[in-house]
């Protein structure tokens, strides 16, 4: 009985914080209506945003007031996970409302677009030429906030002492400062800085303000939505591509690493494993692409180089911007991009994929094992990797966790690609598109369309969701909810 | 002199023995009963069992009448407290602290313990400077580590033998301080000519130490 009372109190705290996040989501839903200032003719669509905003805000406020604990409660990571799961599922569902109400998409398609936004994927079933500006801005906003993290943004702006459990659960676990609120504010601050710089840069390069805002949001959140069907390819401008590349790389960098760079700690920056992975993988892949793939496709060497670099960076950073189409790319090119998509971006950033740190760790483990063969049998070796400015000594437990994650990731990848292929798509296309979903990239080879079979879309939705929240949060939180519900009922 | 030593281990044992053989009176404070017993059996010193950083123990061991207190425990923090107590409370004229972490040499000085030295630093410099020069004994870093005193045996191949000292261009701030020839000490003058087999004592600064040694031994490494 005591256990139930305590459990009840914990869940009250959980529900109240989830309510706060719903309120935040609702307020965000009103933001796209700012476009009415520039395009007043679109006011007819405003109910498509106002209604869901009011409903979810209302539910959120009620949950917040009703369940609010008397003193702020510190959350464990598991409880943080439950809040993340509850908030993301509900917010994604409510965000689908405008797509259904305004664009007339069916439930599957609307949820797809919504999830693609929040998870910063960027795959789309929407015809952007026909969409009102509010919808376009909404998509970009979902990517912006989804990239930082709903919970993280809420923490930075509102609540008091609830501990580091929530940011850890949502994937922003690195400590930039000796207090969670300061860390989170720094993250949001850096992120906002990126956005502002991005908007200014795109404006200077010739985009309209509306396009600059949308694409800046999509770039730094490594999301990839665009206001044009040809994506960045619409402008065919080396300058815009260059700006995008810089923003994409910034967005995919671990926030702690970025913070180090901003503070001028270059030595620590170069020692960082993820920086090294990017610095080796990108040039190698770009070279392969230029020499073996793009030269055969594009008329000029210049265009080949641009395309190779852009697409490679877009894939690795899991952004999903594209400057070209893949219809005539040979298999090697598709293969390289698929591999880059699976590797993914940095940890504690807006990017997806397996994450560069894990790849780095497994690779270094291999090297350490080889090195061990040449050392005295009884030598005691402590291997380490740099994390920020400190040495993180790698235990076999850490390696095991990474290996387990990799296994989970690839298992889902196999299943997801299999389901897509079962619908008749070519193997190459299935592998590419599901990698794009699971790693929340957004590059499409043509499988994802409004007309795609629903099961394909739902498979991709699952891939995006699990990919963004890194499985364990989802599984562990679900398990906890089920177990706790059973305990309370008994 | 009336010397009070706090610490344990072989170093302390031999330190005590050395002082005793020179005729000083030694009192030893040690925290381990078994070690106290062992020491008491072998040394003609007064062995006190207790925590040397405890003012009461220090008083019982005669800190008020001691001329010198040496804190040579393995823990820098204990050595700090012992010396500070000795200085401030008991007004012992000379206190010396052993410092294990070389960085703490400077720290101790800033906290008021002027005589703090690090065996690590001495040993490290011995090893570094000994490597590659077998004929050289580095005696001590003197004057707070700002001056090195080194003893070198001149070989046949040394480039500076056969020339008068005044013709040898040693770098600034280095000096041949003394020459030992056939067991006899010679005070070097400008006209002194160095011979193979001479053992010379040179003072150098850390910056020119390597250069001077190379000039004297002829090693280009």
């Amino acid at each position, binding site marked *: 009985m005591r256990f139930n009372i305590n459990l009840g109190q914990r869940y009250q705290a959980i529900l109240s914080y989830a309510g706060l996040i719903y309120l935040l989501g609702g307020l965000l839903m009103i933001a796209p209506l700012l476009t009415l200032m520039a395009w007043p003719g679109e006011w007819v669509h405003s109910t498509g945003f106002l209604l869901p905003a009011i409903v979810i805000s209302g539910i959120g406020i009620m949950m917040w007031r009703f369940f609010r604990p008397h003193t702020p409660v510190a959350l*464990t990571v598991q409880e943080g996970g439950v809040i993340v799961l509850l908030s993301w599922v509900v917010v994604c569902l409510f965000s689908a409302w405008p797509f259904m109400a305004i664009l007339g998409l069916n439930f599957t398609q609307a949820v797809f677009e919504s999830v693609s936004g929040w998870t910063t994927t960027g795959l789309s079933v929407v015809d952007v030429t026909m969409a009102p500006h509010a919808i376009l801005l909404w998509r970009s906003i979902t990517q912006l906030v989804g990239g930082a993290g709903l919970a993280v943004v809420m923490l930075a702006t509102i609540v008091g002492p609830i501990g580091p459990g929530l940011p850890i659960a949502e994937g922003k676990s690195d400590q930039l400062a000796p207090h969670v609120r300061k860390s989170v504010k720094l993250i949001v601050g850096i992120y906002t800085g990126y956005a502002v710089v991005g908007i200014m840069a795109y404006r200077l390069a010739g985009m309209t303000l509306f396009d600059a805002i949308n694409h800046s949001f999509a770039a730094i959140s490594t999301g990839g939505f665009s206001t044009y069907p040809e994506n960045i390819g619409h402008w065919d401008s080396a300058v815009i591509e260059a700006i995008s590349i810089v923003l994409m790389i910034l967005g995919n960098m671990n926030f702690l690493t970025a913070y180090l760079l901003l503070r001028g700690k270059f030595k620590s920056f170069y020692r960082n494993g993820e920086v090294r992975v990017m610095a080796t993988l990108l040039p190698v892949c770009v070279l392969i692409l230029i020499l073996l793939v793009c030269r055969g496709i594009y008329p000029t060497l210049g265009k080949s180089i641009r395309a190779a670099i852009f697409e490679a960076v877009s894939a690795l950073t899991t952004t999903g911007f594209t400057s070209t189409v893949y219809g005539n790319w040979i298999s090697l090119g598709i293969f390289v991009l698929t591999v880059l998509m699976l590797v993914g971006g940095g940890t504690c950033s807006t990017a997806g994929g397996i994450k560069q740190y894990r790849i780095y760790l497994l690779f270094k483990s291999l090297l350490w094992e080889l090195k061990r063969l040449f050392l005295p049998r009884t030598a005691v070796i402590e291997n380490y990797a740099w994390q920020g400015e400190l040495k993180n000594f790698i235990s076999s437990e850490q390696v095991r966790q990474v290996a387990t994650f990799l296994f989970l990731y690839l298992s889902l990848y196999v299943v997801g690609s299999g389901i897509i292929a079962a619908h008749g798509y070519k193997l190459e296309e299935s592998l590419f598109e599901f990698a794009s979903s699971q790693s929340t990239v957004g590059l499409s080879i043509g499988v994802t369309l409004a007309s795609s079979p629903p099961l394909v879309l739902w498979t991709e939705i699952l891939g995006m969701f699990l990919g963004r929240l890194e499985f364990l949060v989802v599984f562990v939180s679900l398990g906890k909810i089920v177990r706790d519900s059973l305990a309370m009922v008994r | 002199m009336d010397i009070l030593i706090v610490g344990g281990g072989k170093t302390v044992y031999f330190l005590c023995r050395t002082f005793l053989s020179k005729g000083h009176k030694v009192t030893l404070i040690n925290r381990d009963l078994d070690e106290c017993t062992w020491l008491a059996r072998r040394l003609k010193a007064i062995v006190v069992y207790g925590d040397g950083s405890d003012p009461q123990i220090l008083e019982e061991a005669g800190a008020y009448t001691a001329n010198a207190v040496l804190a040579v425990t393995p823990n820098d923090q204990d050595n*700090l407290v012992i010396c500070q107590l000795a200085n401030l409370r008991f007004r012992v004229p000379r206190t010396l602290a052993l410092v294990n972490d070389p960085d703490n040499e400077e720290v101790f000085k800033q906290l008021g313990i002027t005589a703090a030295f690090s065996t690590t630093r001495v040993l490290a410099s011995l090893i570094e400077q000994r490597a590659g020069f077998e004929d050289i004994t580095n005696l001590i870093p003197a004057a707070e580590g700002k001056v090195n005193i080194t003893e070198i045996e001149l070989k046949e191949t040394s480039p500076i033998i056969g020339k008068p000292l005044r013709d040898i261009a040693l770098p600034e701030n280095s000096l041949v301080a003394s020459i030992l020839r056939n067991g006899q000490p010679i005070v070097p003058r400008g006209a002194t000519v160095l011979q193979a087999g001479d053992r010379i004592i040179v003072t150098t600064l850390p910056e020119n130490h390597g250069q001077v040694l190379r000039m004297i031994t002829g090693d280009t490494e």
Partner: protein
Amino acid sequence: MSPGQRLYIIIVGCGRLGSYLANRLSRDGHSVVVIDIDESAFDALSAEYSGFRVEGDATEFAVLEQAKTDEADLVIATTREDNINLMVAQIAKKLFHVPRVMARVFEPKREEIYRDFGIEAVCPTSISGDIFLRWIEGSSAMDGKGS
């Protein structure tokens, strides 16, 4: 320092007292760094602790530098050894110029000497002793014994 200000606090020693202070101070919104020589001591930190953890020997100058002691507003030394607390406190006060330095000192005889160094020392032994004595004297039901 007014209450309600967010401070940068370094706590040396993550035992019962150290971890208690760290948890509370971090929960109250301060930036906290905990230093302990033994990594397993950090297990005593709760879910609400969101500060840094530094594994190392605080009597080593380099470790205090790593913890950015020069930027600290407050250093609290709570290890189990008086001498370590006092050494760390002195280094913090005199070399890093930390505005406020506090230390726990178990041995009452040392308490006085170190107040002279400008270190706020708390002696649990004396405090506990005084409380017990007050209880004892109070229970002998004599008035005039007070304060």
